């Protein structure tokens, strides 16, 4: 009896340990390095200590804790962040990435965890509607779905792409562009911080956000999907999103 107990205990211990330190193949052992453009509140932004904070870092913290990995952000401009996983520099891009068919050649997407729509932010009082936006100057971030939508719909001449949203929103305040096309949840965060701005929805097709993992890391993808599904099912994702949208 004692013997069986001991074996069971040992088994538990071994299993438990192996669950905590399951060997996932990552760029640096034990770490989960992700490329991100931290000018994208509430999904990710920088606090005063240069720490990346927001919805996605919170989610990653929970997921990685379960997988026995330490999340480590690699801050870079968005278009470069998208290219980082296929360049083998990082394990994933986690930067409010919209699931798009073309992007699947570059990365393996996890299951989506939130849905957004493109919004248009402009200075309160300016006459900007979805009917006349085609005549305006639209600011976007380089490489975002907002850029593609704006260029495809209104033409290159109406669009100016900036490295960072922070520069884009400064240009908006200066009047150098008439509006910024940006994911609605992010736009709302900027409207909240910068006085005198408002946002309308574009009514374009909704977009799903997911993490983009370096291609071929099926074990890690499956593990993250499992954890993410759990967090969606028990309402944690929603809670975190609500918390950051307060």
């Amino acid at each position: 009896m004692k013997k069986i107990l001991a074996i069971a205990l040992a088994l538990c211990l071994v299993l438990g340990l192996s669950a905590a330190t399951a060997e996932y193949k990552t760029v640096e052992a034990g770490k989960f390095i992700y490329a991100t453009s931290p000018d994208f509140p509430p999904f990710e932004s920088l606090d005063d200590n240069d720490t990346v904070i927001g919805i996605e870092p919170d989610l990653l913290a929970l997921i990685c804790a379960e997988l026995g990995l330490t999340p480590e952000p690699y801050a870079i401009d968005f278009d470069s962040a998208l290219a980082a996983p296929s360049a083998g520099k990082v394990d994933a891009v986690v930067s409010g990435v919209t699931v798009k068919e073309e992007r699947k050649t570059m990365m393996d997407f996890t299951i989506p965890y939130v849905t957004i729509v493109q919004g248009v932010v402009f200075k309160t009082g300016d006459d900007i509607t979805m009917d006349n936006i085609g005549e305006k100057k639209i600011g976007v971030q380089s490489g975002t779905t907002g850029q593609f939508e704006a260029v495809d719909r209104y033409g290159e001449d109406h669009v100016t792409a900036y490295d960072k949203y922070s520069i884009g929103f400064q240009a908006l305040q200066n009047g150098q562009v008439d509006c910024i096309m940006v994911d609605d949840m992010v736009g709302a965060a900027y409207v909240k911080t910068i006085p005198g701005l408002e946002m309308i929805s574009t009514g374009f097709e909704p977009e799903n956000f997911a993490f983009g993992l370096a291609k071929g890391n099926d074990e890690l993808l499956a593990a993250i999907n499992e954890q993410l599904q759990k967090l969606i099912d028990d309402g944690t994702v929603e809670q975190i999103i609500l918390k950051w949208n307060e």
Partner: protein
Amino acid sequence: MEQFVAWKAMMSAGEPTTIWQQFYVLFYQAFIENDRWRQYLSGVGTTLYVTVLALVLGVVLGLIVAVVRTAHDLQRPGHKNVILGFFNGILKMYVTVIRGTPMMVQLMIMGLVIFASSRNFVMVGALTLGINSGAYTAEIIRGGLMSVDQGQTEAGRSLGMNYADTMRFVVVPQAIKAILPALGNEFIVLLKDTSLISVIGGKELLYAARSVAARNYEPMYPYVGAAIVYLILVMIFTKLLGIFERRLRASDRR
């Protein structure tokens, strides 16, 4: 076109493809699909436009600064001109500030603060680059003017020519020959620095390459393509400079 679609589908599906097929697909989508070469072409146009504008502005500014500063330094001791001293002080500060701050910071300040209400990003970029280049050009020209033998100025002045004529006909032409290599170097730096104006929204060559790279999620072909264009431009420029230099050296032959 059909071949491109077919091969691209093969690549997306992960079917085995030859290196040639991969090259064809990536090259096609980087430069030919949706007439993307037009984006590069208009980007090159902007790059050249900004370079020429900035170059002219830089040389004019540099010449003014250099002449004023040289004139100030060569005044009779004890006979300092107050107005000249005032301008000399301002220009000295200009050179110090511009050479002491990074190009990128200057672009941000010019684009987002000083010209906050301008939408002509290309013009603001050209202006910033020109002002930046002027500070470096000024020192190059000043060095060139100083390198011309003092006897040349003396000879010109002893013949009764005024300072301006002596500079214009005697000193400057000789200085140009001495500074041309350094000036050419500065121009090359300038040409390449135009790529920085994309941060304030100037749509030059790098902006085009970046847009295409973002569209295709494939950075190599657009960026290498842009690099090759820059290289070709610099090589053409170097060649032209060489021809110009040879013509200036005509008076050296024996």
